[in-house]
């Protein structure tokens, strides 16, 4: 029975005899009563003892604890951030829902508590600005969250970010566009995020066709589902960031294992049994992980303060939004320390700490390939069919398949690496002495090196795959924009209209804008076949414009004001023939009653062939063309002007001036073609962030490698001194350290490249993009791997030189 578990009986006997001891003789002190601790109490005692050892481990012990804590802290911070995403999105969407109501299905009648409300969204230098124009019908209008009362006509309430932008020196054109007096600032509850650019402006002239009448703010709506590439990117980013963190978490709690085992041998010598020593070892790891847990919480709380400056996929939130659910936080708080204990116990399954040292009773096992291949194989089997499908669709099952497939593929890399290192180094023979020392060392025990490197491998593989996906997305967007630029006008502007004269005024204003080279515009409206209660697909479209404007759309035989033309465009099987009665106010939805406004297509109208018939950008699908006098615009339900503007791109402010001209005509007009490609900067930002994250992970893993290398050197202090004594050059051992790091890292990099390229290709196939490799990123990542090797070697050399001193030979 060990001293730590000595029976209480002997102590009791001794204390009972104490009264009979002769006073002249000094008895040895009676042993302290000891009670065998079992169960949870025993566990707690041993873990606490281990924690005390870790805390009292001196400078080196603290360095190891600190590194474990840093690794765990990083993991915890990422986990907390990951589990905050649902809360974050709920808060974000919640504020959006609470403040919005762009139209009610059954608009209320004008009343004391109703308002006219219109969107005046605009863009300034690529920044989206949300604008709302408000005109109260009475004295008690609804007020959106974030402001106490509605701004009066000519005044506006602005978000802090917009106020800052308006006050900036380069914002003169924006100030001209939003020509309202700033009456106040919108509070946080009325904003989606701190960086949001938004305003509410008061109007005295806003009228019905341009605005919705509402009696409350807050609208039930489902947020738009993300686009497939974005979902892929989000899922992959989570997987690629969390996987190395998990691997690192597992690795970091094993730092200092060998030193710890030696210390535990001393405990065995004084009577601790094997399970006790294992629990004490777990207690040491637990100490580091608890510190890491606290550090991670601090890192998370500190890091989220920077949330306001980060905008990803248009999502920008307040620091307070980034909060994990209490259940998730509790799970992290419990599971992370538990993982550290389990991992440490697991790491010790093959060794026994004996009183005179550590016995590794498991002979070097031959690593089996079959189950290691099985993991990435199953992952690939899940992903390949998805990449072969026509187009990736965002369904829960697909997301699950994608996540599971990616995790298995990446985890498979970590499982394959030890086998690969064993298989490769096992075949290495000969070579110079440093090479031989390194390869032999790896042949003997490659476990600790591959454990650390597997973190690098999984981080790199994930990063390469994501970088490929981003490159594909970026190229796809760039191609789409290039295509769009070829086919579309430079800018398209739409807006409600009451009369053709109003459209003409807009055309004139745009043509007068400096830098504009060409403007085309018509008033467009829809009509249906008369007599159909629910016309479904039987809508027609009509363009109203001057002969000059209509000639830009179609080849007109001749044209005078009052003429109507049929185009003969019949792509949907519609057959609006001359003389046919049509409805200018068709019923678009079953529960939206509309009173018919019949109009007869004049008989004997000529046919005008559309110049670009068809659907999509740059094409037109009008059924009828009409000159302004031919039809009364007021008879249509929602006629709108469709203006297309081409301009000289040399001056970046031209587009801003065009927007100003449009806003002066009617602030509710909006662009329907995107001039700026926001994806470029967004994707570049994500790529830069990802690259930075990968570098940080790699350097952190590099720090772990340094620790394990220095520990290994420390263990071999006497041998190193002996090697120095027999004349071994420092360079020889320095090179052996470099090779010892370089071989597993190089193999890990190779595996990461293979897996990353394969996963990236599958992901690109899922978004129907051509497989393209961003070699700059691959070279950059490989370069970082090389830097890690040099970093580890360079930091290992000073201790190596120190341990080669002859003091190591002294036995006394």
């Amino acid at each position: 029975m060990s001293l730590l578990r000595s029976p209480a009986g002997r102590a009791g006997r001794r204390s009972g005899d104490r009264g009979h001891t002769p006073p002249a003789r000094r008895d040895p002190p009676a042993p302290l009563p000891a009670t065998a601790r079992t169960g949870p109490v025993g566990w707690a005692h041993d873990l606490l003892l281990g924690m005390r050892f870790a805390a009292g481990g001196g400078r080196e012990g603290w360095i190891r604890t600190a590194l474990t804590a840093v690794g765990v802290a990083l993991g915890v911070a990422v986990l907390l951030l990951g589990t905050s995403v649902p809360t974050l999105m709920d808060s974000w969407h919640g504020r959006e829902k609470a403040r919005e109501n762009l139209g009610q299905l059954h608009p209320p009648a004008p009343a004391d508590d109703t308002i006219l409300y219109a969107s005046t969204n605009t863009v300034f230098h690529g920044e989206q600005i949300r604008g709302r124009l408000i005109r109260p019908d009475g004295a008690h209008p609804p007020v959106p969250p974030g402001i106490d009362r509605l701004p009066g006509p000519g005044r506006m309430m602005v978000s802090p970010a917009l106020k800052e932008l308006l006050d900036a020196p380069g914002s003169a054109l924006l100030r001209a566009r939003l020509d309202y007096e700033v009456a106040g600032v919108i509070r946080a509850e009325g904003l989606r995020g701190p960086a949001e650019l938004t305003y509410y402006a008061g109007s005295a002239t806003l009228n019905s066709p341009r605005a919705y009448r509402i009696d409350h703010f807050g609208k039930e709506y489902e947020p738009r589902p993300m686009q497939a590439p974005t979902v892929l990117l989000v899922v992959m980013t989570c997987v690629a960031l969390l996987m190395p963190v998990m691997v690192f978490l597992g690795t970091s709690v094993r730092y200092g294992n060998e030193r710890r085992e030696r210390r535990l041998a001393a405990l065995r010598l004084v009577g601790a049994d094997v399970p006790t020593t294992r629990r004490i070892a777990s207690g040491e790891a637990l100490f580091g992980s608890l510190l890491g847990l606290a550090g991670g919480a601090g890192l998370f709380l500190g890091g989220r303060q920077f949330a306001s400056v980060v905008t990803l996929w248009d999502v920008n939130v307040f620091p307070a939004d980034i909060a994990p659910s209490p259940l998730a936080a509790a799970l992290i708080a419990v599971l992370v320390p538990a993982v550290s204990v389990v991992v440490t116990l697991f790491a010790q399954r093959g060794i026994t700490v004996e009183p005179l040292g550590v016995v590794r009773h498991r002979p070097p096992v031959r690593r089996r390939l079959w189950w290691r291949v099985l993991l990435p194989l199953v992952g690939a089997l899940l992903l390949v069919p998805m990449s072969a499908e026509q187009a990736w669709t965002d369904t829960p099952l697909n997301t699950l398949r994608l996540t599971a497939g990616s995790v298995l593929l990446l985890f498979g890399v970590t499982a394959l690496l030890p086998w690969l290192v064993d298989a490769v180094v096992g075949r290495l023979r000969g070579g110079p002495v440093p090479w031989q020392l390194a390869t032999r060392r790896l042949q003997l025990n490659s476990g600790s090196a591959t454990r650390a490197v597997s973190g690098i491998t999984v981080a790199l593989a994930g990063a390469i795959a994501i970088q490929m996906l981003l490159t594909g997305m970026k190229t796809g967007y760039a191609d789409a924009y290039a295509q769009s630029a070829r086919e579309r006008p430079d800018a398209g502007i739409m807006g409600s209209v009451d009369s053709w004269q109003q459209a003409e005024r807009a055309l004139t204003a745009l043509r007068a804008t400096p830098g504009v080279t060409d403007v085309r515009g018509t008033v467009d409206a829809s009509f249906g076949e008369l007599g159909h209660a629910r016309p479904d697909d039987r809508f027609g479209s009509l363009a109203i414009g001057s002969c000059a404007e209509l000639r830009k759309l179609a080849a007109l035989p001749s044209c005078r004001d009052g003429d109507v033309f049929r185009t003969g465009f019949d792509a949907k099987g519609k057959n609006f023939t001359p003389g046919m009665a049509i409805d200018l106010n068709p019923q678009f939805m079953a529960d939206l009653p509309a009173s018919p406004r019949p109009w007869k297509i004049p008989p004997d109208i000529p046919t005008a062939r559309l110049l670009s018939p068809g659907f999509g950008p740059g094409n037109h699908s009008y059924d009828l063309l009409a000159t302004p006098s031919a039809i009364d615009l007021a008879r249509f339900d929602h006629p709108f002007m469709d203006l297309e503007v081409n301009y000289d791109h040399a001056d970046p402010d031209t587009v801003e001036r065009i927007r100003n001209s449009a806003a002066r005509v009617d602030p509710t007009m909006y662009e329907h073609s995107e001039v700026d490609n926001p994806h470029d900067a967004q994707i570049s930002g994500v790529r830069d962030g990802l690259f930075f994250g990968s570098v940080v992970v790699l350097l952190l893993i590099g720090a772990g490698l340094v620790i394990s290398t220095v520990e290994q050197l420390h263990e071999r202090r006497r041998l190193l001194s002996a090697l120095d004594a027999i004349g071994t050059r420092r360079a020889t051992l320095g090179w052996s350290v470099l090779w010892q790091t370089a071989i597993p890292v190089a193999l890990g990099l190779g595996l990461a490249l293979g897996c990353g390229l394969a996963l990236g290709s599958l992901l690109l196939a899922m978004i129907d993009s051509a497989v393209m490799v961003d070699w700059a990123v691959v070279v950059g990542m490989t370069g970082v791997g090389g830097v890690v090797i040099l970093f580890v070697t360079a930091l290992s050399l000073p201790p190596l030189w120190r341990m080669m001193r002859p003091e190591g030979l002294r036995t006394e």
Partner: protein
Amino acid sequence: MTPPGSLLEARTLHKSYGPTPALDGADFTIHPGEVVAVMGPSGSGKSTLLHCLAGIIRPDSGTVRYGEHNLTTMNDARRSALRRSDFGFVFQFGQLVPELTCVENVALPLRLAGAKRAAAEARSLEWMERLEVAEIGAKRPGEVSGGQGQRIAVARALAGAPRVIFADEPTGALDSLNGERVMALLTEAARDTNAAVVLVTHEARVAAYSDREIVVRDGVAREMAGTV
């Protein structure tokens, strides 16, 4: 230059570790083919003397001459080169590289001196045969007994055809039978190659294999009465 006939000579060596003197004016001389036992109690400075003689450490003062070389003025690289080419070492615990096989361990000094692998290992096997450990050449040090390991260490010390072998408590970790066997093989091989052996020990039975005994006490080396 060493005195005529002597191979390695030290004069008035002083070496302190912090405030503690390890050598306090120690003298030492050894001739080719001679086996000199350096004896003394623990902490007397025997190992420090051996390290100074081998050029592993530099004394604070005094000189160590080996042939034409003054080890006390040579830089670290040249002393390392000399240790590779002219000296051999046997340590108490063998200090074999655990990941190399026994034959690779024996070949290590030769390879460090620039020999090709095959030639170095062939030469090593010859020594291993002579020391009766050829059959364990492919094993790693962790897989052989203490006595075998120490014989591998002796083979490593001899493989480079050194002119001086420094043996620091070479039998300290062995039982008496294995210790005797190692000592017999070491001294016999040294005599055959005319190599001098500086043998640090505190065991009289080990010192008995020497031609001459020197006692180090309080950092001063004295010739034992009655030895040659």
